[in-house]
């Protein structure tokens, strides 16, 4: 089977600073991949580069999606092809309600035309599943939301847009146990044989309800170790230090992602 998403020798810089130093990745339809790594290793950079964040400059390598080189496409074009990124820190957008926003985005990614009422009705089961009150639809996007509400709203957007390939950047960070469970369940229900997923996390709460097919460890901008779900469990237990020792990597200076 060919890759749904293929990243080849990806080099990414932010300003003058090189973050990713030759990353290779192949995600096939239906696969769940997890990228783990210490803070500052380049995990979020990978996701943002795949989504075409203008701040993350691709200096070398390529990104292919469904067999097409998408390296030159803008974020909205990539989104319309079915790529989705759940943000680590969702942005507050004052003045735009969640419902308005969902409706405009849905109109961009699909040809389906839904009346206002039908659209609102279609949101109800998703809201219930995520334990979000219907009143959230009338609130401004992420404005004044708690960490958990923001992450749930990301999952809500994901379900409405129905992408083929989703990236979850720290979807479970900063959440209480219940919220982690709701978000994880929401994601795992969404993932079917056709959907592929790249989960970015520096710990692995989310992995208790989603079993990955592959686990990649990024340290200092490179994928240094790959394995199956058991690698994730080992990291959950022992952290990253043993990998550094095993590979003879030195302790990096703390960097901002």
């Amino acid at each position, binding site marked *: 089977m060919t890759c749904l998403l293929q990243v080849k020798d990806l080099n990414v810089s932010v300003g003058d600073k090189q973050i990713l130093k030759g990353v290779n990745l192949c995600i096939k339809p239906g696969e769940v991949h997890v990228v783990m790594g210490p803070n500052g290793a380049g995990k979020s950079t990978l996701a943002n580069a795949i989504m*075409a964040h*203008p701040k993350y400059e691709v200096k070398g390598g390529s990104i292919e999606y469904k067999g097409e080189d998408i390296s030159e496409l*803008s974020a909205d074009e990539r989104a319309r092809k079915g790529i989705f990124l759940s943000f680590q820190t969702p*942005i507050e*957008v*004052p003045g735009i309600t969640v419902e308005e*926003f969902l409706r*405009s985005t849905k109109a961009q990614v699909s040809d389906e035309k839904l009346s206002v009422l039908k659209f609102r009705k279609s949101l109800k089961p998703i809201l219930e599943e995520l334990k979000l009150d219907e009143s959230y639809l009338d609130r401004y996007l992420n404005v004044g939301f708690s960490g958990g509400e923001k992450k749930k709203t990301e999952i809500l957007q994901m379900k409405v*847009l129905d992408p083929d390939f989703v990236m979850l950047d720290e979807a479970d960070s900063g959440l209480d146990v219940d919220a982690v469970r709701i978000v994880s369940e929401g994601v795992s229900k969404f993932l079917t044989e056709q959907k592929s997923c790249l989960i970015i996390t520096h710990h692995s709460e989310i992995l208790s309800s989603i079993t990955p097919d592959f686990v990649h460890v990024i340290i200092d901008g490179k994928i240094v170790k790959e394995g199956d779900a058991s690698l994730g469990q080992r990291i959950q237990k022992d952290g990253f230090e043993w990998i550094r020792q095993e590979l003879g990597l030195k302790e990096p200076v703390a960097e901002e992602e």
Partner: protein
Amino acid sequence: MISRNNTATTLSTEELQAKLEQRKAARKAFRAERARLREKRKAERTEVVEMRRGVYDNKNKFEYSLKLENGLSEEIVREISESKGEPEWMLNKRLEALEIFNKTPNPTWGPDLSAVDMNQISTYIRPKAQLESDWNSVPDNIRDTFNQLGIPEAELEMLSGVGAQYDSEVVYHNLKQRFKDMGVVYTDFDTAVREYPEIVQKYYGKCINPAMHRYAALHYAVWSGGSFVYVPKDVYVDIPLQSYFRLNAPGAGQFEHTLIILEEGADAHFIEGCSAPKYNTLNLHAGAVELFVSKNAHLRYSTIENWSRNMYNLNTKRAMVDEDGKIEWVSGSFGSAVSMLYPSSILRGEGASSEFTGITFAGQDQYLDTGAQVMHYAPNTYSSINSKSISKSNGIAIYRGLVDVGVNAHGSKSTVSCESLMLDNESRSDTIPTIRIQNDDVDLGHEAKIGRIDETAIFYLMSRGIPEEEAKAMIVRGFAEPIAKELPMEYAVEMNNLITLELKGAIG
């Protein structure tokens, strides 16, 4: 109770035709000269890049029954007064104001006004149409313009009195019968001067003094058209009173006078909308809005102004608020080359309050110097100012505000919030809030936020499939939403359309 004399006392068509004949030859020569001058100026001046503003830029064929010489002299002022058949006292007010105008220089602060040349501005233009009470008898070309601006829809939707100003005269006026029955007067200001002289004389010029500044003086010398609203005691006007102003003549200034009086316990909402087509000659707008809010009365005054890019908008708006009265300003300033607009509220009765919500959009080559002023001159008064500005290209958006708390205004409270959004690195924004406090017992809050449009927010929206320009537009519309939601639906839609048009200018 006010009674209304229904017989029209404007000059008859025959009289106007006679005047027209007399002036025909002179006007022809004058026009040729002006055209020559315009060409000359055009050649000398760097062309201002105009954006497409859709229906707002449509201009109708120039066709007027009377147009005075450009420039300003005592003769012109007398002529204006005479053609309106004004009483002596009004002529005297005009002449006094002219004297003040001639002595008063341009302000030394704010935008440069040296390009405002009175010799280029004709101060009085009367449309061919006489005052109409029936929509069907309004001339076709004028009706077309209003059609494009959505006036008939408003009418169809049973919105109340629509007084629309076409250049300097009100051509269309309609007031619902039940308002008449309530004793509410809503008419053009020229008619008010003739038909309600006692009221007009009592209030006219008492809120805004010609000596306030040069363009207030100019206004009082040459005013023409405008609206007059009188709401008797305890009358609640439950449908907004609307007026659509529109400038349509090259080189013409607009000096409409608005006078609104709410008696004790009355309640009304007045909506003023302005848009103008573009022209390359200098244009000046110097209107005056005088609002009187009596004890326990409540007035909301909403404006969406959308001037062509060569307009100097030097408007003066002021409200006097009595005991426990309340004025609410909702203000959207778009277009113009230069705007200086600071609606002010004088809280002169105990417990009086003022709320100001305003938005300003400064695009390329625009200098919008706007804000609000509140004078707390009585105890336990309250005010809030919520101002937002957007600037793009090399546009300049300045918030200039004043909160003045007098010696006897103890127990008063004021909050000011200014937010500026700059869409690129070329635009400029600044806040100049002045606060004067003359007693210890006041509660004052001030908050200012200036920022550029957030790249990450744009990316966030784009990552959901929204193209970049639409993402920016969404963020800007969201920024303006607190203002939009204060407006009636049709005006909110218009404002959002304006924002989208303004943003599109950035691409083209």
